[in-house]
């Protein structure tokens, strides 16, 4: 492990230095809503255990314009809205969300066509993670291949050592920030040992431990299982579980007319929990009730996505558990699946 160590008070200096040269996104508290947003000063940073809205929306915005069109004398002019080539830093990302980006990467880059909007932002953004010393009881990252101190997907990782912060250099990309951290002291053997100690404690404190081995194979035989009919009953189909999820990436493509002769094509987040998601013009709908839609969500995360990309598409952040209005708990669903 390589890293720098500094007094907590100096974090603001580090951030404000970065702000002079780059765009910085960090967790903030906007009238009570914790989310990630661009900041202009380190004083805006708000460390909560985990923000209500994940950092996903910084690289994959809730709504973004793909191009604009304009009609002029019977002709049409299109203008692609290009993601600006500007170096950015996404600061304070929990390790589970950082892993979420790796999962979205696969979906947006592995086919014949590439999602240029997301990928350009991804390429230009350095991710500074923040390790989770005190996982909550809804967290289950270690059950799905992650860790509260996971390095997957982060370029640098900030550890809270009480009086000080240790900023660990994780990836090659992270070294691009070397100029900003050179002035801080190198972390010593003792500092590193301390990180390892709190890492161990954090991992051991994880309350939820799910045994999900072979879940993909289990689900192979469960498409027609009566389970779906039972678990969907209390779901109200609000879609919150998918909107807040740091690994859900489904979107809709729509038009917005500004004047009769100009407008834009935009894409917005969408949810497999909505009936319109699959409703066809002919009136046919392959997923007519909540049963099929709940099944799709679970199957996508724990069977279809793993089949295509070799990884479970849930990072165990627990948002869908905490925010579901009817307390539908994905951990309970997973236990039921594993008990089949």
């Amino acid at each position, binding site marked *: 492990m390589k890293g720098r160590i500094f007094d907590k008070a100096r974090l603001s200096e580090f951030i404000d230095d970065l702000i002079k040269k780059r765009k910085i996104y960090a967790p903030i508290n906007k009238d009570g809503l914790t989310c990630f947003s661009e900041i202009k000063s380190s004083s805006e940073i708000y460390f909560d255990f985990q923000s209500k809205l994940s950092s996903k929306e910084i690289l994959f915005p809730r709504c973004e314009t793909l191009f604009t069109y304009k009609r002029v004398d019977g002709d049409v002019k299109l203008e692609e809205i290009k993601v600006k080539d500007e170096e950015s830093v996404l600061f304070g990302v929990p390790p589970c969300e950082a892993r979420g980006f790796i999962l979205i990467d696969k*979906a947006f880059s592995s086919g014949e*066509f*590439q999602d240029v909007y997301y990928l350009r932002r991804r390429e230009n953004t350095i991710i500074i993670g923040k390790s989770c010393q005190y996982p909550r009881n809804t967290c289950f990252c270690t059950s799905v291949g992650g860790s509260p101190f996971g390095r997957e997907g982060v370029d640098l990782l900030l550890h809270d050592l009480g009086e000080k912060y240790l900023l660990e250099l994780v990836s090659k990309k992270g070294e691009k920030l070397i100029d900003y951290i050179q002035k801080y002291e190198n972390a010593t053997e003792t500092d590193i040992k301390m990180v390892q100690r709190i890492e161990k404690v954090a991992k051991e404190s994880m309350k939820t431990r799910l045994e999900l081995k072979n879940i993909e194979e289990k689900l192979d035989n469960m498409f027609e299982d009566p389970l779906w009919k039972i678990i969907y009953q209390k779901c109200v189909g609000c879609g919150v579980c998918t909107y807040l999820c740091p690994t859900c990436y*489904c979107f809709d493509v729509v038009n917005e007319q500004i004047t009769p002769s100009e407008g834009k094509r935009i894409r917005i987040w969408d949810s497999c929990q909505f009936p319109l998601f699959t409703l066809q013009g002919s009136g046919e709908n392959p997923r007519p009730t909540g049963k099929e839609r709940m099944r799709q969500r679970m199957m996508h995360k724990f069977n279809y996505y793993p089949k295509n990309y070799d990884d479970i598409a849930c990072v165990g952040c627990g948002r869908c558990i905490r925010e579901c209005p009817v307390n539908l708990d994905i951990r309970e669903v997973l236990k039921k699946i594993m008990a089949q």
Partner: protein
Amino acid sequence: MLNPYIPNLTVIKKITQENDLNDIKTFKLAFNNPSKFRDFKYRCGQFAELSLFGVGECPIGIASSPSDNFLEFTVKKVGMVTTALHNCEEGEIIGVRGPYGNGWPSERLESHDIFILGGGFAFTTLRSLIKYILHEENRAKFSKLCVIYGARDPGELLYKYDLRTWATRDDIQVIPTIDRASNGWVGRVGFPNQIIKEVASDTENSLAIICGPPIMIRFTIPILVKLGFPPKNILTSLEMRMKCGIGTCGRCNIGNKFVCKDGPVFSYKELQNMPKEH
């Protein structure tokens, strides 16, 4: 990196009314930028996203043949985008992005006798394939070609102009058929899945391609199996609601397959191994 979401601009060169109900029209398009058309290399059975500025996009199978030097789509008026397209006039500009999807498996087609069963307006990419096979540069590569095409009544058959030309050739057997007897109709009456029983031959070594309303497909597949077509040789093209057309928006999956990028063409054998959600 190429941006797959930006459509090519095309101008509507010609609009052909296809049926008596006048809810199906064929649109012939020309690219504003001819070099973009040269890059738009497509196979029979692929589709494209048609783009109406201010309205939206919709996936439509390509109805022209790669051997044609233009692009054609046949569209039924059902909702927002398709209605807006039907309201267009010749000379208007619309967007096209694609081609997308796998298309009909041309190598496999070349080595087999082919039986095509079409029903209703889902004949569009079949027409592309037939035109391609019949093209003078291609015909010799293929073997026997038999087409059974059914519609509710004579006025609802698409591509009547093509059907007439095909009927004059001896290297294709074309059997148009209608559901119920109708005044002035001298052709066959009955469903394609009945007529295939009379004309199918050497089924173990032949391919059956079937496109039509879901109900027709459900009834026809068991008949084809019974006639001896191997499940891997029974091909169909699926429809799902789509947005991106390129496998990113997460909308059109059946199990772990995306209809837009792994399909829309699937064999019955593949469908047997997929969840029943289509």
